[in-house]
């Protein structure tokens, strides 16, 4: 028996960003995995201490470039809480709609690349990107930006929405539902995809809680934990949706959980569109370089991001945060990779890594 070291990375197609894995293998079996991170570390937390509140918005957006609006919302909510600003009712509905569209777009990008890695070459990828492009087009018409929106302001939004937004959003949900319901034909009945993901990278319920993983990874291990349900924000308390959970905690369950989440998101979007008032003020406070004075309390805000639970712990100061600490869900999900991968075959490392859906920009901060 000889142990061999294999260096994976720093660039691999199945990672978003730069990640290096040092893998010890015995023949084809993984003995040990050591993730080396920090290649994209740019000291965001320190940078944010030196900028005014609303200047920081662009930093939080760039953390997770697949779902920028979700991080933007998390940060803006933390500032809103620090300043005691209430979000306008119509803006709450619109935020829920856009956040859920963003979640679907993020899961679609993940699904396309994950299927591409695991035996469903390119068809799934092209389909997922076709649907994602339609979502991004709608988001672009609302905010002006295709990838980075920066349209949240304290208490509301930067600008009003287009007049035909509601009609287009309804049409888009119908389109998405129709298309997404067709995906299992390509995946759940694909023997290669099933073989590569079923029973691979199992994380039991107790070790998932112990490792502190969150989001779809935690739910796939059978823990029904979703911030939108447990501590509802905006109008999520009024929405009817279920939190999908898995049973085995393997890569296939993580795919199923994300897949069901997309359908649930569409359900939430429809309810929010029904409930959103036709007219009403959407606009938030304009950006001023000298921001408003915050009350010096501790602020803890958590939001359900597509990758798991994001949390901001902030000590506000007068015009900028004194200390801001970001909980990145991808960071702690990757910390559980060694346990999932040990004892598996080397080729299974990529389904496992892919099923965690990490974004290195957010992970390294």
């Amino acid at each position, binding site marked *: 028996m000889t142990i061999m070291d294999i260096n994976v990375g720093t660039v691999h197609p199945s990672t978003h960003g730069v990640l290096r894995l040092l893998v010890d293998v015995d023949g084809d079996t993984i003995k040990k995995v050591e993730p080396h*991170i*920090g290649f994209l570390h740019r000291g965001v*937390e*320190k940078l944010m201490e030196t900028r005014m509140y609303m200047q920081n918005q662009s930093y939080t957006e760039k953390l997770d470039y697949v779902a920028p609006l979700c991080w933007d919302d998390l940060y803006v909510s933390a500032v809103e809480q620090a300043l005691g600003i209430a979000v306008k009712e119509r803006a709450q509905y619109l935020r829920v709609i856009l956040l859920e569209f963003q979640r679907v777009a993020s899961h679609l990008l993940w699904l396309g690349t994950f299927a591409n890695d695991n035996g469903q070459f390119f068809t799934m990828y092209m389909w997922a990107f076709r649907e994602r492009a339609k979502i991004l087009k709608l988001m672009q018409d609302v905010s002006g930006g295709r990838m980075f929106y920066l349209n949240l302001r304290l208490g509301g939004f930067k600008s009003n929405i287009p007049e035909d937004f509601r009609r287009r959003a309804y049409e888009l949900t119908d389109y998405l539902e129709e298309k997404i319901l067709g995906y299992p034909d390509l995946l759940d009945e694909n023997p290669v995809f099933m073989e590569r993901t079923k029973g691979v990278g199992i994380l039991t319920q107790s070790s998932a*809680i*112990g490792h*502190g993983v969150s989001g779809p990874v935690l739910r796939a291990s059978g823990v029904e934990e979703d911030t939108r349900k447990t501590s509802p924000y905006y109008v999520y308390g009024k929405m009817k949706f279920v939190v999908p959970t898995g049973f085995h905690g393997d890569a296939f369950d993580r795919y199923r959980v994300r897949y069901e989440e997309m359908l649930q998101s569409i359900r939430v979007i429809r309810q929010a569109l029904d409930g959103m008032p036709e007219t009403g003020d959407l606009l938030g406070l304009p950006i001023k370089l000298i921001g408003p004075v915050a009350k010096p309390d501790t602020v*803890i805000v*958590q939001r359900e991001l597509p990758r798991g639970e994001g949390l901001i712990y902030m000590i506000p100061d007068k015009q900028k945060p004194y200390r801001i600490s970001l909980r990145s869900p991808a960071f*702690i999900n990757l910390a559980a990779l060694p346990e999932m991968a040990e004892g598996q075959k080397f080729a299974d490392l990529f389904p496992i890594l892919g099923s965690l859906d990490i974004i290195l920009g957010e992970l390294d901060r």
Partner: protein
Amino acid sequence: MKTLKERKSAGYDYLKKITAVDYATHLEVVYIIYNTTTHAQEVVKAKLPAERPSIDTAIGVYRAADWYEREMSEMFGIRIKGRAAKRLLLEEWNGVGAPLKKDFTWGKEDYDKVL
């Protein structure tokens, strides 16, 4: 650490985050813990002196503490007692001290030291 053990036996089985705050006169370590059955959240704080700060490891209580402690120790220069020293997590190639402390400064000439 004793408090954390007590809270864990009281049902707080999930560690959400470990972080620290530098108040110049002292440091504060913050543990955010969570109960997955009752969905209750708690914050446990520990005060450390500014000079040679150190704290016991929480790995024995929460496995999730591993990477959080490494990150905190690297960013604030806090020594974690009771666990083996490991390589730096985020600044593996060019550690620069304790960047998130308030007295940390970084100028143009400092780049030459690490690059």
